[in-house]
């Protein structure tokens, strides 16, 4: 069965410092991996995804993520954090073959707090 884990409930970082939000996955075969952000009382917004090719994926708002197959990880990164980046972040995984419903499996979420 496929699964995704976000080992940190919360990440605290000072504004201007680099940030990393961790994600590890377990899936048979090659995965498709996604990152989403959620602001309070709002829906999830898509940030970026890994399908194939370059292991470093760039997405919205200056975020990027690095796919590491040997470590089965897909960590979200940003070189310089902003206070406005404070939100809840979700990692998600999907099989690379079609399954009925084509569902994403989500991690439990990591709350990012960026302090001025």
């Amino acid at each position, binding site marked *: 069965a496929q699964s995704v884990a976000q080992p940190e409930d919360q990440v605290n970082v000072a504004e201007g410092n680099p940030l990393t939000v961790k994600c590890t996955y377990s899936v048979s075969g090659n995965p498709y991996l996604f990152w989403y952000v959620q602001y309070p009382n709002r829906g999830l917004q898509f940030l970026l995804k890994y399908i194939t090719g370059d292991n470093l994926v760039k997405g919205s708002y200056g975020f990027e993520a690095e796919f590491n197959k040997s470590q089965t990880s897909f960590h979200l990164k940003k070189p310089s954090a902003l206070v406005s980046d404070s939100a809840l972040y979700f990692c998600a995984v999907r099989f690379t073959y079609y399954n009925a*419903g084509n569902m994403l499996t*989500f991690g439990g979420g990591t709350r990012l707090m960026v302090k001025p």
Partner: protein
Amino acid sequence: SQTIHQWPATLVQPVGSPLSLECTVEGTSNPNLYWYRQAAGRGLQLLFYSIGIDQISSEVPQNLSASRPQDRQFILSSKKLLLSDSGFYLCAWSVRQAVSAEAFFGQGTRLTVV
């Protein structure tokens, strides 16, 4: 471009009352549709998904049901709400049979059962 609408944004309902949450998608055809529930601002629980009109699959047994009367309309219902039905409900869609496609979410409905 595609958009997803979900309403109402907030809802306060008494225990035992019925529920109807609606979600519609514009700008695409034959989407996969999903209902998720988020408790306490954390993890997402998939409740239902649909790959076509009147084709609904339930992921967890519960007090809720879903229907898809039209291609781009997805409705979440309950005949009698329980206190445990409180939460943040999210509708989402994705392109059918596109395994690399991301899902797009509505703005959510905050349901409080009192």
